[in-house]
């Protein structure tokens, strides 16, 4: 089984910051907007290097989204930065009308997504954002798994014409994808090849899926792990190719099962190749305060949970 080396734990938001810093130097049309969370979003370097292209909006996310939409008129590529909750739920109608329906080239960059925001608790731990964003026609939805991939995705979305939701997080997690990767929007990455079960993961749970695959391998179960960094548009070809081989699937995400990656995969399978599926996701619940790793364990979003569901779904194969 192919294994991956963690080159050192680091937060995905820092990958966003590094990507934005690079874009500042390479793309003069990139502008950044922030709603009083410059440090949390790692936008300080861009702000320092390009004060004329950095806009501090204050704690006014609705205004930030509208200003970003307006800035596209004249050719700017605005990157908005705040927590995932305030990037989506708080401003859903602004995104819907002024960005998505208006077809504006705005990049909504959202940190602190999911339970791993930790101690701040449920008010800040959005577990519904992927669902809200993927339902908007024309919106591209990306949830990256590590520092390197987040940086690569940040560079890639500047080249993509159209609205994008880029989701990443706060905790320091394994960094294991190649530093020099080319990020292809909508293209799944098959991390391990296997025959018994497909594990389709996104975001922080991709590393957990690899850890689960190792556990399963020790039990003689071969798992194919697919990193779906782009939830919309979904790489249906890669999913179907794998599930046709393994005949069952586990999806894993730091998000409610309602509206998440798992449901998108289930639709793809229902239409093309029905197969047993288990969901590693939160069960229609809010989060709570606590240490990120303890929360992931309590809500069943880690390698252990993925391995258990993999064994369960294999038993459901006909």
């Amino acid at each position, binding site marked *: 089984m192919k294994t991956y080396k963690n080159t050192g734990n680091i937060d995905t938001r820092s990958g966003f910051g590094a990507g934005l810093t690079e874009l500042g130097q390479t793309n003069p049309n990139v502008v950044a907007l922030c709603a009083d969370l410059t440090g949390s979003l790692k936008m300080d370097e861009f702000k320092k290097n390009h004060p004329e292209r950095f806009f501090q909006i204050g704690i*006014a996310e609705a205004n930030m989204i509208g200003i970003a939409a307006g800035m596209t*008129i*004249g050719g700017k590529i605005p990157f908005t930065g705040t927590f995932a909750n305030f990037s989506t739920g708080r401003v859903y*109608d602004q995104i*819907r*009308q002024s960005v998505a329906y*208006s077809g504006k080239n705005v990049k909504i960059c959202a940190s602190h997504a999911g339970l791993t925001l930790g101690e701040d608790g449920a008010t800040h731990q959005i577990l519904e954002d992927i669902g809200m964003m993927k339902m908007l026609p024309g919106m591209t939805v990306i949830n990256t798994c590590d520092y390197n991939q987040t940086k690569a995705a940040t560079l890639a979305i500047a080249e993509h014409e159209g609205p994008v939701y880029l989701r990443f997080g706060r905790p320091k997690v394994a960094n294991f994808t190649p530093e020099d990767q080319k990020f292809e929007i909508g293209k799944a990455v098959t991390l391990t090849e296997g025959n018994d079960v497909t594990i389709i993961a996104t975001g922080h749970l991709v590393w957990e899926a690899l850890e689960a695959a190792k556990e399963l391998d020790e039990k003689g179960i071969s798992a194919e792990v697919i990193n779906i960094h782009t939830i919309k548009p979904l790489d249906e070809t890669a999913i179907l190719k794998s599930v046709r081989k393994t005949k069952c699937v586990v999806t894993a995400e730091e998000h409610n099962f309602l509206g998440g990656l798992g449901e998108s995969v289930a639709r793809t399978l229902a239409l093309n190749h029905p197969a047993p599926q288990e969901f590693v996701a939160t069960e229609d619940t809010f989060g709570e305060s606590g240490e990120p790793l303890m929360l992931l364990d309590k809500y069943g979003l880690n390698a252990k949970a993925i391995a258990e569901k993999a064994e369960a779904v294999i038993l459901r194969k006909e």
Partner: protein
Amino acid sequence: MQDFVTQVRRDILRQVHQVNSGHPGGSLGCAEFFTVLYQEVMEYSTDFDMDGKNEDLFFLSNGHISPVFYSVLARSGFFPVEELSTFRKIDSRLQGHPTTHEGLPGIRIASGSLGQGMSVAIGAAHTKKMNKDSHLVYSLHGDGELQEGQNWEAILYAGSKGVDNLIATIDYNKKQIDGATDDVLPLGDLKKKFEAFDWKVLELKEGNDVEAIRKTLEEAKGLTGNNQPIVILMDTEMGNGVDFMMGTHAWHGKAPNDEQLETALAQNPETLGDY
């Protein structure tokens, strides 16, 4: 100019009548404003380009008054006047509320869900500055629309940051769907409120008079570039130009029937030719 305004009024009435829906009241009240803005004040190209570089831009925030916007855009050369007959019908570029989604020339943002246009106008104004483009950004907002909180985020921002290439106009007709703004949710002293947010306020008491509008818009243009956003509080009459539609909020979102249309059109005889 007055002929243009009268024809716009006919267009508004005929558009909403033919689909028995739409918003004639606010549209009629802003016929002079749109006419002066597009016929005299703004510099623009009818060879429409979304980026609008080196031209003035306009954003309609209270998108429900689309009939007046469509009429003036068509009669200013953005699209064929005949297309007004498709207003609110299936497969039309003239949606109930304006949108970029169907590719109608002249529209740069979707509006309809209220309170979003000022933020968009500020963003476009920022980009003009970054592009070293000295042209201006204009916007129009309903007075009732100011009840939406996002406006006050935008008003605070534009004042505090000195966005001085923006001229926002408030259609101050003091009416909204449910009645007088003073009965629904009083707006208080709008002049003092904008001034408290560091805006330059111009009061236009005759918002249905082309000369007065021209004068105020020219004055506003002269005040740009002074580190302060500009707002025009434009007193208008909802339903202006049709006697039975004036002095009431009843025609905010209601179309006239056949007989009422005939009466209304008789008060606004054909000038430039009906579509």
